């Protein structure tokens, strides 16, 4: 593995962006789930 900091930064940035987006999807799923529970009542 290269120790070049720029390479590492770019690598980290890529996955941070993807993970943030995936987290928003997850949050929306959770909210939706709550809403479905409410609807079932």
């Amino acid at each position, binding site marked *: *593995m*290269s120790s*070049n900091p*720029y*390479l590492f*930064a*770019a*690598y980290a*940035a*890529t996955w941070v*962006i*993807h993970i943030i*987006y*995936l987290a928003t*999807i997850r949050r*929306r*799923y959770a909210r*939706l789930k709550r*809403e*479905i529970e409410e*609807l079932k009542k």
Partner: protein
Amino acid sequence: MRRLFPILVIFTGVLLSYAMSIALLPVVHIGGITLIGAPTEQTMGSVQRIFYYHVPSAWTAFILFFINLGASVYYLIKRCATADIVALVTAEVGVVFCTVVLVTGPIWARPVWGIWWTWDMRLTSTLVLWLIYVSYLFLRKFSSSGQTPLLAAALAVLGALCVPFVYFSIWFFRTQHPQPVMGGGGSIDPRMLHVLLVNWLAFSCFAFLVCWSRFRLEKVQREVDEAHAMRSLLDDPSAAARSMR
């Protein structure tokens, strides 16, 4: 279809880890055979490896935007709700990938060109593309009418019409004012090309998975909205009728 999902997740995971390892690790030779990795670029050094996720992300984003255009046109003709969800999802995930491109680009440019940002042709046009699709997402978010899909589809078509102009104008703009040019050019090492393609495949699979789950989310969301509306349809109107007296 839904049973396929876990299989796809595993497949994409394996592919991604393979793609990442060959992108990041230097070549390992055992007995004269290249086992793993791409050669380190001579002039730029290992920084060049940023390309292995910069470029595939860009390709993936372009493909997603292209699908967005197709779905939007289809929606305008057929008014099919699924096409609208596809358009929404591809635009959103496309913007995410485009963001990756715009972030990794400067990180590459800094050590190679010595500047974070240059108004180079590719960076600039990608930025403009990003702006167009972010404005598309804004419209979807702020539209108050029940006809959001129609407005969004219209914007997507005009935005796509704009893309050739963006490239053409910025290309001409840049050839007029010389700027730092990308290093080397010419032919690419076949082993590098191999790594690039594997990464692209991996990122495409990843994008497809993200789109899928986002698609499911949107679809269920709309079903819930529909259920709310149905419930208000079924409510007993007699209460209101009584209050009328």
